[in-house]
Protein backbone atom coordinates (compact mmCIF):
# COMPACT_ATOMS: atom_id res chain seq x y z
CA UNK A 1 0.00 0.00 0.00
CA UNK A 2 1.37 3.39 -0.90
CA UNK A 3 0.18 6.89 -0.23
CA UNK A 4 1.18 10.49 -0.43
CA UNK A 5 2.02 12.56 2.56
CA UNK A 6 -1.10 14.57 3.14
CA UNK A 7 0.22 16.68 5.94
CA UNK A 8 3.09 16.52 8.34
CA UNK A 9 3.66 18.67 11.38
CA UNK A 10 6.97 19.04 13.13
CA UNK A 11 6.76 18.12 16.81
CA UNK A 12 6.09 21.39 18.59
CA UNK A 13 8.25 22.48 21.47
CA UNK A 14 6.22 21.66 24.58
CA UNK A 15 8.64 22.84 27.25
CA UNK A 16 6.74 26.04 28.04
CA UNK A 17 3.24 24.50 28.42
CA UNK A 18 4.74 21.64 30.41
CA UNK A 19 6.10 23.72 33.28
CA UNK A 20 2.71 25.37 33.63
CA UNK A 21 0.99 21.99 33.89
CA UNK A 22 3.53 20.74 36.42
CA UNK A 23 2.99 23.89 38.45
CA UNK A 24 -0.76 23.30 38.46
CA UNK A 25 -0.37 19.66 39.52
CA UNK A 26 1.96 20.70 42.30
CA UNK A 27 -0.51 23.32 43.51
CA UNK A 28 -3.34 20.78 43.49
CA UNK A 29 -1.31 18.33 45.50
CA UNK A 30 -0.31 20.98 48.07
CA UNK A 31 -3.92 22.09 48.33
CA UNK A 32 -5.09 18.53 48.96
CA UNK A 33 -2.41 18.08 51.63
CA UNK A 34 -3.44 21.29 53.43
CA UNK A 35 -7.04 20.14 53.35
CA UNK A 36 -6.10 16.77 54.86
CA UNK A 37 -4.10 18.41 57.68
CA UNK A 38 -6.83 20.93 58.44
CA UNK A 39 -9.43 18.20 58.85
CA UNK A 40 -7.07 16.06 60.92
CA UNK A 41 -6.83 18.95 63.38
CA UNK A 42 -10.39 20.21 63.12
CA UNK A 43 -12.34 17.01 63.92
CA UNK A 44 -10.60 16.20 67.23
CA UNK A 45 -10.80 19.84 68.31
CA UNK A 46 -14.50 19.95 67.55
CA UNK A 47 -15.06 16.79 69.59
CA UNK A 48 -13.09 18.22 72.53
CA UNK A 49 -15.04 21.44 72.31
CA UNK A 50 -18.31 19.52 72.32
CA UNK A 51 -17.18 17.62 75.40
CA UNK A 52 -16.08 20.82 77.13
CA UNK A 53 -19.46 22.44 76.51
CA UNK A 54 -21.39 19.32 77.45
CA UNK A 55 -19.76 19.10 80.85
CA UNK A 56 -19.93 22.85 81.43
CA UNK A 57 -23.68 22.84 80.84
CA UNK A 58 -24.23 19.75 82.94
CA UNK A 59 -25.04 17.32 80.14
CA UNK A 60 -22.21 15.09 81.40
CA UNK A 61 -21.65 14.12 85.02
CA UNK A 62 -18.63 16.15 86.17
CA UNK A 63 -17.53 13.38 88.54
CA UNK A 64 -16.92 10.91 85.71
CA UNK A 65 -16.45 13.23 82.77
CA UNK A 66 -14.71 16.37 83.98
CA UNK A 67 -14.28 18.92 81.24
CA UNK A 68 -11.10 18.61 79.15
CA UNK A 69 -9.75 21.90 80.52
CA UNK A 70 -10.21 20.66 84.07
CA UNK A 71 -8.47 17.43 83.20
CA UNK A 72 -5.54 19.32 81.70
CA UNK A 73 -5.16 21.66 84.67
CA UNK A 74 -5.46 18.73 87.07
CA UNK A 75 -3.05 16.58 85.11
CA UNK A 76 -0.58 19.45 85.01
CA UNK A 77 -0.02 18.86 88.71
CA UNK A 78 1.75 15.69 87.69
CA UNK A 79 4.25 17.73 85.76
CA UNK A 80 4.53 20.66 88.15
CA UNK A 81 4.87 19.04 91.58
CA UNK A 82 8.21 17.21 91.97
CA UNK A 83 6.74 14.34 94.03
CA UNK A 84 3.97 13.59 91.59
CA UNK A 85 6.33 14.04 88.67
CA UNK A 86 8.77 11.50 90.07
CA UNK A 87 5.83 9.19 90.63
CA UNK A 88 4.65 9.53 87.05
CA UNK A 89 8.14 8.98 85.68
CA UNK A 90 8.44 5.75 87.64
CA UNK A 91 5.15 4.52 86.20
CA UNK A 92 6.26 5.51 82.72
CA UNK A 93 9.63 3.81 83.10
CA UNK A 94 8.01 0.60 84.35
CA UNK A 95 5.52 0.39 81.50
CA UNK A 96 8.09 1.52 78.97
CA UNK A 97 10.54 -1.20 79.97
CA UNK A 98 7.89 -3.91 79.78
CA UNK A 99 6.52 -2.69 76.48
CA UNK A 100 9.93 -2.06 74.89
CA UNK A 101 11.61 -5.28 75.94
CA UNK A 102 8.56 -7.42 75.29
CA UNK A 103 7.98 -5.91 71.87
CA UNK A 104 11.64 -6.21 70.86
CA UNK A 105 11.99 -9.82 71.98
CA UNK A 106 8.70 -10.83 70.39
CA UNK A 107 9.41 -9.01 67.13
CA UNK A 108 12.91 -10.45 66.67
CA UNK A 109 11.80 -13.99 67.52
CA UNK A 110 8.71 -13.62 65.33
CA UNK A 111 10.77 -12.38 62.41
CA UNK A 112 13.22 -15.28 62.61
CA UNK A 113 10.62 -17.98 63.12
CA UNK A 114 8.37 -16.44 60.46
CA UNK A 115 11.22 -16.50 57.95
CA UNK A 116 12.04 -20.11 58.82
CA UNK A 117 8.39 -21.12 58.43
CA UNK A 118 8.10 -19.30 55.15
CA UNK A 119 11.30 -20.66 53.66
CA UNK A 120 11.43 -24.19 54.99
CA UNK A 121 8.41 -26.46 54.43
CA UNK A 122 9.38 -29.02 57.09
CA UNK A 123 9.65 -26.27 59.72
CA UNK A 124 6.23 -25.10 58.58
CA UNK A 125 4.69 -28.58 58.87
CA UNK A 126 6.30 -29.07 62.27
CA UNK A 127 5.16 -25.76 63.76
CA UNK A 128 1.84 -25.05 62.11
CA UNK A 129 -0.30 -27.20 64.42
CA UNK A 130 1.28 -25.66 67.51
CA UNK A 131 1.02 -22.10 66.24
CA UNK A 132 -2.51 -22.48 64.92
CA UNK A 133 -3.49 -24.00 68.26
CA UNK A 134 -2.12 -21.22 70.45
CA UNK A 135 -2.70 -18.24 68.17
CA UNK A 136 -6.49 -17.92 68.60
CA UNK A 137 -6.20 -17.88 72.40
CA UNK A 138 -6.48 -14.37 73.81
CA UNK A 139 -2.96 -13.99 75.16
CA UNK A 140 -4.21 -12.57 78.46
CA UNK A 141 -5.60 -15.99 79.33
CA UNK A 142 -2.02 -17.22 79.48
CA UNK A 143 -0.99 -14.68 82.13
CA UNK A 144 -1.47 -17.09 85.06
CA UNK A 145 0.66 -19.63 83.22
CA UNK A 146 3.38 -17.03 82.71
CA UNK A 147 3.29 -16.23 86.43
CA UNK A 148 3.75 -19.92 87.20
CA UNK A 149 6.78 -19.99 84.87
CA UNK A 150 8.38 -16.66 85.68
CA UNK A 151 6.92 -15.56 88.99
CA UNK A 152 5.02 -12.37 89.75
CA UNK A 153 6.67 -9.24 88.40
CA UNK A 154 8.32 -7.86 85.30
CA UNK A 155 9.52 -11.11 83.75
CA UNK A 156 6.12 -12.72 83.40
CA UNK A 157 4.66 -9.51 81.95
CA UNK A 158 7.48 -9.13 79.45
CA UNK A 159 7.14 -12.78 78.50
CA UNK A 160 3.42 -12.42 77.84
CA UNK A 161 3.93 -9.26 75.76
CA UNK A 162 6.68 -10.98 73.79
CA UNK A 163 4.37 -13.92 73.17
CA UNK A 164 1.59 -11.69 71.85
CA UNK A 165 3.95 -9.83 69.54
CA UNK A 166 5.67 -13.02 68.46
CA UNK A 167 2.53 -14.61 67.01
CA UNK A 168 1.49 -11.53 65.06
CA UNK A 169 4.94 -10.96 63.59
CA UNK A 170 5.69 -14.64 62.91
CA UNK A 171 2.40 -15.33 61.13
CA UNK A 172 2.57 -12.17 59.03
CA UNK A 173 6.23 -12.67 58.13
CA UNK A 174 5.59 -16.26 57.10
CA UNK A 175 2.65 -15.36 54.90
CA UNK A 176 4.66 -12.48 53.42
CA UNK A 177 7.36 -14.95 52.41
CA UNK A 178 4.99 -17.65 51.22
CA UNK A 179 2.38 -15.65 49.37
CA UNK A 180 4.47 -13.03 47.63
CA UNK A 181 4.16 -13.15 43.84
CA UNK A 182 5.72 -16.48 42.73
CA UNK A 183 7.35 -14.74 39.78
CA UNK A 184 9.86 -13.19 42.23
CA UNK A 185 11.06 -16.66 43.16
CA UNK A 186 11.21 -17.58 39.49
CA UNK A 187 13.42 -14.57 38.80
CA UNK A 188 15.73 -15.56 41.66
CA UNK A 189 16.01 -19.11 40.34
CA UNK A 190 16.23 -18.25 36.65
CA UNK A 191 19.11 -15.85 37.27
CA UNK A 192 20.76 -18.25 39.71
CA UNK A 193 21.01 -15.78 42.59
CA UNK A 194 23.30 -17.05 45.36
CA UNK A 195 21.41 -18.01 48.52
CA UNK A 196 22.21 -14.93 50.59
CA UNK A 197 21.69 -12.49 47.74
CA UNK A 198 18.34 -14.14 47.14
CA UNK A 199 17.35 -13.75 50.78
CA UNK A 200 18.49 -10.13 50.96
CA UNK A 201 17.25 -8.87 47.60
CA UNK A 202 14.16 -10.99 46.90
CA UNK A 203 12.72 -12.89 49.86
CA UNK A 204 12.94 -10.21 52.53
CA UNK A 205 11.88 -7.19 50.44
CA UNK A 206 8.92 -9.14 49.06
CA UNK A 207 7.81 -9.86 52.63
CA UNK A 208 8.34 -6.34 54.03
CA UNK A 209 4.82 -4.96 53.60
CA UNK A 210 3.43 -7.99 55.40
CA UNK A 211 6.09 -7.78 58.15
CA UNK A 212 5.22 -4.13 58.70
CA UNK A 213 1.55 -4.93 59.21
CA UNK A 214 2.63 -7.74 61.56
CA UNK A 215 4.61 -5.23 63.62
CA UNK A 216 1.64 -2.88 63.71
CA UNK A 217 -0.75 -5.58 64.90
CA UNK A 218 1.91 -6.83 67.32
CA UNK A 219 2.28 -3.41 68.91
CA UNK A 220 -1.47 -3.23 69.39
CA UNK A 221 -1.32 -6.56 71.22
CA UNK A 222 1.62 -5.39 73.31
CA UNK A 223 -0.24 -2.27 74.41
CA UNK A 224 -3.32 -4.25 75.43
CA UNK A 225 -1.25 -6.78 77.34
CA UNK A 226 0.90 -4.27 79.18
CA UNK A 227 -2.09 -2.29 80.39
CA UNK A 228 -4.17 -5.33 81.29
CA UNK A 229 -1.42 -7.12 83.21
CA UNK A 230 -0.69 -3.90 85.10
CA UNK A 231 -4.37 -3.66 86.02
CA UNK A 232 -4.02 -7.06 87.64
CA UNK A 233 -0.48 -7.07 88.99
CA UNK A 234 -0.82 -3.85 90.96
CA UNK A 235 2.85 -2.96 91.18
CA UNK A 236 3.03 0.20 89.15
CA UNK A 237 2.99 1.23 85.50
CA UNK A 238 0.55 3.32 83.50
CA UNK A 239 -2.03 0.52 83.58
CA UNK A 240 -1.85 0.52 87.37
CA UNK A 241 -2.15 4.32 87.36
CA UNK A 242 -5.36 4.12 85.33
CA UNK A 243 -6.91 1.35 87.44
CA UNK A 244 -5.90 2.87 90.75
CA UNK A 245 -7.09 6.39 89.95
CA UNK A 246 -10.41 4.95 88.83
CA UNK A 247 -10.79 3.10 92.13
CA UNK A 248 -10.08 6.20 94.21
CA UNK A 249 -12.17 8.26 91.77
CA UNK A 250 -9.30 10.54 90.78
CA UNK A 251 -10.81 10.71 87.30
CA UNK A 252 -8.51 13.37 85.77
CA UNK A 253 -5.51 11.12 86.45
CA UNK A 254 -7.33 8.27 84.80
CA UNK A 255 -7.71 10.41 81.71
CA UNK A 256 -4.03 11.33 81.93
CA UNK A 257 -3.23 7.61 81.82
CA UNK A 258 -5.58 7.09 78.90
CA UNK A 259 -3.94 9.95 77.03
CA UNK A 260 -0.50 8.47 77.62
CA UNK A 261 -1.58 5.06 76.30
CA UNK A 262 -3.32 6.64 73.34
CA UNK A 263 -0.34 8.81 72.44
CA UNK A 264 1.98 5.83 72.73
CA UNK A 265 -0.17 3.83 70.33
CA UNK A 266 -0.38 6.72 67.91
CA UNK A 267 3.36 7.41 68.07
CA UNK A 268 4.27 3.76 67.58
CA UNK A 269 1.90 3.50 64.65
CA UNK A 270 3.49 6.58 63.09
CA UNK A 271 6.99 5.14 63.65
CA UNK A 272 6.01 1.84 62.07
CA UNK A 273 4.49 3.64 59.07
CA UNK A 274 7.66 5.65 58.75
CA UNK A 275 9.72 2.46 58.93
CA UNK A 276 7.51 1.03 56.22
CA UNK A 277 8.14 4.05 54.01
CA UNK A 278 11.90 3.78 54.55
CA UNK A 279 12.05 0.03 53.93
CA UNK A 280 9.41 -0.15 51.24
CA UNK A 281 9.56 3.13 49.32
CA UNK A 282 8.07 1.46 46.24
CA UNK A 283 4.70 1.04 47.91
CA UNK A 284 2.32 3.73 46.76
CA UNK A 285 1.09 5.63 49.80
Amino acid at each position, binding site marked *: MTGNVVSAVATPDLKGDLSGAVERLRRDRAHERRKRRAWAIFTPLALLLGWELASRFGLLDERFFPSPLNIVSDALRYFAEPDLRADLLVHLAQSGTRLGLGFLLGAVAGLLVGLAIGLHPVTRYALSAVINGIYPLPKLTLYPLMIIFFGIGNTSMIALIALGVFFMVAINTASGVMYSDPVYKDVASA*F*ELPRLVRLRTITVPAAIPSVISGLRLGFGQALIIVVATEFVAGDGGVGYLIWNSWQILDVPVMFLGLTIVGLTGWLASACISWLGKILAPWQAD
Partner: protein
Amino acid sequence: MKSSDTSAVHIDDLTKVFLSRDGRGVHALQNIDLDVRSGEVVAIIGPSGCGKSSLLRILAGLDQVYEGRVRWNLAAAEGNDKSRRGRLTSATVFQSDSTLPWMTVEKNVRIGFAKLRLDRADAAARVADVLQLVGLSEFPKAYPHELSGGMRQRVAIARALATRPHLLLMDEPLAALDAQTRLVMQQELIDIWRQTHSTVFYVTHDIEEAVTVADRVVVLSARPGRVRMVRDVETTGASVTELRRDPAFGDLTVELWNTIAGEVGGSLAAAPNGEPGSTKVGVA
Protein backbone atom coordinates in the same frame (compact mmCIF):
# COMPACT_ATOMS: atom_id res chain seq x y z
CA MET B 1 21.49 -16.18 11.72
CA LYS B 2 23.57 -19.23 10.98
CA SER B 3 23.21 -22.07 13.41
CA SER B 4 25.86 -24.67 13.96
CA ASP B 5 25.24 -28.38 14.10
CA THR B 6 25.93 -28.77 17.80
CA SER B 7 22.83 -29.20 19.88
CA ALA B 8 22.29 -26.64 22.66
CA VAL B 9 19.24 -28.29 24.16
CA HIS B 10 18.08 -31.75 23.30
CA ILE B 11 14.53 -32.65 24.27
CA ASP B 12 13.70 -36.31 24.08
CA ASP B 13 10.20 -37.73 24.55
CA LEU B 14 9.20 -35.06 27.04
CA THR B 15 5.83 -35.37 28.75
CA LYS B 16 4.51 -33.05 31.43
CA VAL B 17 1.56 -33.73 33.68
CA PHE B 18 0.34 -31.28 36.32
CA LEU B 19 -1.68 -32.26 39.33
CA SER B 20 -4.65 -29.92 39.56
CA ARG B 21 -5.91 -28.67 42.89
CA ASP B 22 -8.61 -31.31 43.08
CA GLY B 23 -6.10 -34.07 42.35
CA ARG B 24 -6.77 -34.65 38.65
CA GLY B 25 -3.92 -34.99 36.21
CA VAL B 26 -3.67 -32.15 33.69
CA HIS B 27 -1.82 -33.31 30.63
CA ALA B 28 0.18 -30.30 29.42
CA LEU B 29 2.82 -31.70 27.06
CA GLN B 30 3.11 -35.03 25.33
CA ASN B 31 6.05 -36.80 23.70
CA ILE B 32 7.92 -33.69 22.67
CA ASP B 33 11.06 -34.32 20.63
CA LEU B 34 12.97 -31.20 19.77
CA ASP B 35 16.52 -30.14 19.23
CA VAL B 36 17.55 -26.53 19.69
CA ARG B 37 20.83 -26.05 17.89
CA SER B 38 23.52 -23.76 19.08
CA GLY B 39 23.08 -20.27 17.65
CA GLU B 40 19.55 -20.92 16.49
CA VAL B 41 16.38 -18.97 17.16
CA VAL B 42 13.45 -21.35 17.63
CA ALA B 43 9.96 -19.91 17.92
CA ILE B 44 7.16 -21.89 19.54
CA ILE B 45 3.60 -21.06 18.62
CA GLY B 46 0.36 -22.75 19.54
CA PRO B 47 -3.03 -22.09 21.03
CA SER B 48 -3.27 -20.67 24.53
CA GLY B 49 -2.98 -23.32 27.21
CA CYS B 50 -1.14 -25.80 24.98
CA GLY B 51 1.89 -25.94 27.25
CA LYS B 52 4.27 -23.34 25.77
CA SER B 53 5.05 -21.74 29.11
CA SER B 54 5.34 -25.15 30.74
CA LEU B 55 7.93 -26.18 28.16
CA LEU B 56 9.87 -22.95 28.64
CA ARG B 57 9.92 -23.39 32.42
CA ILE B 58 11.33 -26.87 32.01
CA LEU B 59 14.07 -25.55 29.72
CA ALA B 60 14.82 -22.80 32.25
CA GLY B 61 15.32 -25.44 34.93
CA LEU B 62 12.47 -23.93 36.97
CA ASP B 63 10.40 -27.08 36.69
CA GLN B 64 12.29 -30.30 37.24
CA VAL B 65 9.37 -32.67 37.48
CA TYR B 66 8.65 -34.23 34.06
CA GLU B 67 8.81 -37.48 32.13
CA GLY B 68 11.43 -37.92 29.46
CA ARG B 69 14.86 -36.37 29.04
CA VAL B 70 16.20 -32.88 28.52
CA ARG B 71 19.91 -32.45 27.88
CA TRP B 72 21.55 -29.05 28.06
CA ASN B 73 24.86 -28.51 26.36
CA LEU B 74 25.40 -24.84 26.89
CA ALA B 75 28.56 -23.40 28.39
CA ALA B 76 30.80 -26.15 27.01
CA ALA B 77 31.68 -24.49 23.74
CA GLU B 78 32.79 -21.36 25.53
CA GLY B 79 36.47 -20.40 25.59
CA ASN B 80 38.43 -18.96 28.47
CA ASP B 81 37.52 -18.55 32.11
CA LYS B 82 36.86 -14.84 32.03
CA SER B 83 34.26 -14.96 29.30
CA ARG B 84 32.60 -17.91 30.99
CA ARG B 85 32.23 -15.92 34.18
CA GLY B 86 30.70 -13.06 32.23
CA ARG B 87 27.75 -15.03 30.85
CA LEU B 88 24.85 -16.85 32.46
CA THR B 89 23.99 -20.33 31.28
CA SER B 90 20.46 -19.24 30.61
CA ALA B 91 18.25 -16.23 31.18
CA THR B 92 14.49 -15.98 31.08
CA VAL B 93 11.97 -13.29 30.19
CA PHE B 94 8.69 -14.25 31.80
CA GLN B 95 5.23 -13.90 30.37
CA SER B 96 3.97 -11.97 33.38
CA ASP B 97 5.53 -8.81 34.78
CA SER B 98 8.74 -9.95 36.46
CA THR B 99 10.21 -6.62 37.52
CA LEU B 100 10.93 -6.39 41.23
CA PRO B 101 8.90 -3.45 42.57
CA TRP B 102 11.41 -2.60 45.30
CA MET B 103 14.25 -2.00 42.87
CA THR B 104 14.87 0.80 40.42
CA VAL B 105 15.09 -0.05 36.73
CA GLU B 106 18.88 -0.10 36.96
CA LYS B 107 18.91 -2.43 39.97
CA ASN B 108 16.34 -4.64 38.28
CA VAL B 109 18.83 -5.13 35.47
CA ARG B 110 21.82 -5.52 37.76
CA ILE B 111 20.22 -8.26 39.83
CA GLY B 112 20.86 -10.53 36.84
CA PHE B 113 24.61 -10.11 37.40
CA ALA B 114 24.49 -11.60 40.91
CA LYS B 115 26.13 -14.84 39.87
CA LEU B 116 28.54 -13.30 37.36
CA ARG B 117 31.76 -11.70 38.40
CA LEU B 118 31.80 -8.49 36.49
CA ASP B 119 34.00 -5.56 37.31
CA ARG B 120 32.28 -2.24 37.97
CA ALA B 121 32.97 -0.70 34.59
CA ASP B 122 31.75 -3.74 32.69
CA ALA B 123 28.54 -3.92 34.73
CA ALA B 124 27.83 -0.22 34.27
CA ALA B 125 28.53 -0.41 30.55
CA ARG B 126 26.23 -3.39 30.12
CA VAL B 127 23.39 -1.68 32.00
CA ALA B 128 23.77 1.44 29.89
CA ASP B 129 23.86 -0.65 26.69
CA VAL B 130 20.75 -2.69 27.34
CA LEU B 131 18.73 0.24 28.63
CA GLN B 132 19.65 2.11 25.48
CA LEU B 133 18.62 -0.90 23.43
CA VAL B 134 15.16 -1.15 24.97
CA GLY B 135 14.68 2.61 24.96
CA LEU B 136 14.78 3.17 28.71
CA SER B 137 18.01 5.18 29.00
CA GLU B 138 16.13 8.01 30.63
CA PHE B 139 14.65 5.88 33.41
CA PRO B 140 17.46 4.14 35.28
CA LYS B 141 16.27 5.52 38.62
CA ALA B 142 12.55 4.95 38.10
CA TYR B 143 10.66 2.34 40.07
CA PRO B 144 8.51 -0.17 38.17
CA HIS B 145 5.24 1.33 39.46
CA GLU B 146 6.21 4.54 37.70
CA LEU B 147 6.40 2.75 34.34
CA SER B 148 3.79 1.42 31.94
CA GLY B 149 3.28 -2.31 31.50
CA GLY B 150 5.17 -2.30 28.22
CA MET B 151 8.10 -0.44 29.78
CA ARG B 152 8.25 -2.94 32.64
CA GLN B 153 8.37 -5.78 30.16
CA ARG B 154 11.25 -4.03 28.41
CA VAL B 155 13.10 -3.87 31.73
CA ALA B 156 12.70 -7.64 32.00
CA ILE B 157 14.05 -8.03 28.47
CA ALA B 158 16.99 -5.77 29.28
CA ARG B 159 17.78 -7.83 32.38
CA ALA B 160 17.92 -11.05 30.39
CA LEU B 161 19.98 -9.59 27.54
CA ALA B 162 22.49 -7.99 29.92
CA THR B 163 23.57 -11.39 31.24
CA ARG B 164 24.62 -12.45 27.71
CA PRO B 165 23.10 -15.89 28.26
CA HIS B 166 24.13 -19.00 26.37
CA LEU B 167 20.45 -19.79 26.12
CA LEU B 168 17.85 -17.03 26.04
CA LEU B 169 14.32 -18.09 26.95
CA MET B 170 11.52 -15.67 26.16
CA ASP B 171 7.85 -16.22 26.97
CA GLU B 172 5.68 -13.91 24.86
CA PRO B 173 8.10 -11.08 25.66
CA LEU B 174 6.52 -8.50 23.38
CA ALA B 175 2.87 -9.29 24.02
CA ALA B 176 2.48 -6.33 26.40
CA LEU B 177 3.90 -3.82 23.93
CA ASP B 178 1.99 -1.69 21.45
CA ALA B 179 2.24 -2.68 17.80
CA GLN B 180 4.83 -0.07 16.83
CA THR B 181 7.13 -0.70 19.77
CA ARG B 182 6.78 -4.41 19.10
CA LEU B 183 8.13 -4.02 15.56
CA VAL B 184 11.01 -1.88 16.76
CA MET B 185 11.85 -4.39 19.48
CA GLN B 186 11.70 -7.29 17.03
CA GLN B 187 14.25 -5.50 14.90
CA GLU B 188 16.47 -4.80 17.92
CA LEU B 189 16.33 -8.41 19.03
CA ILE B 190 17.13 -9.75 15.57
CA ASP B 191 20.09 -7.38 15.29
CA ILE B 192 21.54 -8.27 18.65
CA TRP B 193 21.07 -12.01 18.10
CA ARG B 194 22.85 -11.77 14.74
CA GLN B 195 25.78 -10.05 16.42
CA THR B 196 26.02 -12.45 19.34
CA HIS B 197 25.00 -15.71 17.60
CA SER B 198 22.52 -16.29 20.40
CA THR B 199 20.61 -19.46 21.01
CA VAL B 200 17.03 -18.43 21.62
CA PHE B 201 13.85 -20.23 22.55
CA TYR B 202 11.04 -17.82 21.78
CA VAL B 203 7.43 -18.44 22.79
CA THR B 204 4.80 -16.31 21.11
CA HIS B 205 1.19 -16.49 20.04
CA ASP B 206 1.80 -14.08 17.18
CA ILE B 207 2.44 -16.01 13.96
CA GLU B 208 3.99 -13.09 12.09
CA GLU B 209 6.30 -12.42 14.99
CA ALA B 210 7.41 -16.03 14.99
CA VAL B 211 8.22 -15.93 11.28
CA THR B 212 9.94 -12.57 11.70
CA VAL B 213 12.35 -13.44 14.48
CA ALA B 214 12.93 -17.17 14.13
CA ASP B 215 15.13 -19.50 12.11
CA ARG B 216 12.70 -22.29 12.82
CA VAL B 217 9.06 -22.26 13.87
CA VAL B 218 7.54 -25.07 15.90
CA VAL B 219 3.77 -25.37 16.10
CA LEU B 220 2.34 -27.12 19.12
CA SER B 221 -1.05 -28.76 19.03
CA ALA B 222 -3.84 -27.90 21.45
CA ARG B 223 -3.42 -29.41 24.92
CA PRO B 224 -1.80 -31.78 25.47
CA GLY B 225 0.88 -30.02 23.44
CA ARG B 226 2.57 -32.18 20.82
CA VAL B 227 4.84 -31.00 18.06
CA ARG B 228 2.37 -30.47 15.26
CA MET B 229 4.65 -28.97 12.65
CA VAL B 230 8.22 -27.68 12.30
CA ARG B 231 9.18 -25.21 9.56
CA ASP B 232 12.49 -23.63 8.68
CA VAL B 233 12.16 -19.96 7.87
CA GLU B 234 13.81 -19.29 4.53
CA THR B 235 13.22 -15.57 4.32
CA THR B 236 16.20 -13.35 3.77
CA GLY B 237 14.94 -9.87 4.54
CA ALA B 238 17.42 -7.66 6.31
CA SER B 239 14.85 -5.66 8.21
CA VAL B 240 11.54 -6.39 9.84
CA THR B 241 9.65 -4.29 7.32
CA GLU B 242 11.44 -5.68 4.26
CA LEU B 243 10.78 -9.15 5.53
CA ARG B 244 7.06 -8.59 5.25
CA ARG B 245 7.37 -7.93 1.48
CA ASP B 246 9.01 -11.30 0.91
CA PRO B 247 6.45 -13.67 -0.70
CA ALA B 248 7.91 -16.51 1.38
CA PHE B 249 6.88 -14.60 4.52
CA GLY B 250 3.25 -14.48 3.44
CA ASP B 251 3.17 -18.11 2.32
CA LEU B 252 4.62 -19.39 5.57
CA THR B 253 2.36 -17.19 7.67
CA VAL B 254 -0.72 -18.50 5.88
CA GLU B 255 0.42 -22.10 6.18
CA LEU B 256 1.06 -21.72 9.92
CA TRP B 257 -2.22 -19.90 10.37
CA ASN B 258 -4.15 -22.74 8.74
CA THR B 259 -2.42 -25.31 10.93
CA ILE B 260 -3.14 -23.38 14.11
CA ALA B 261 -6.70 -22.56 13.12
CA GLY B 262 -7.27 -26.31 12.83
CA GLU B 263 -5.87 -26.78 16.32
CA VAL B 264 -7.98 -24.03 17.81
CA GLY B 265 -11.11 -25.41 16.16
CA GLY B 266 -10.23 -28.88 17.36
CA SER B 267 -9.67 -27.76 20.92
CA LEU B 268 -12.92 -25.81 20.97
CA ALA B 269 -14.78 -28.88 19.80
CA ALA B 270 -12.94 -31.18 22.18
CA ALA B 271 -13.55 -29.04 25.24
CA PRO B 272 -17.24 -28.16 25.28
CA ASN B 273 -17.06 -26.94 28.87
CA GLY B 274 -13.58 -25.51 28.62
CA GLU B 275 -12.88 -21.82 28.66
CA PRO B 276 -13.41 -20.64 25.10
CA GLY B 277 -11.51 -17.42 25.86
CA SER B 278 -8.35 -19.38 26.48
CA THR B 279 -8.01 -20.58 22.91
CA LYS B 280 -7.66 -17.29 21.12
CA VAL B 281 -4.69 -16.98 18.87
CA GLY B 282 -3.39 -13.56 18.01
CA VAL B 283 -3.03 -12.86 14.35
CA ALA B 284 -1.78 -9.51 13.30
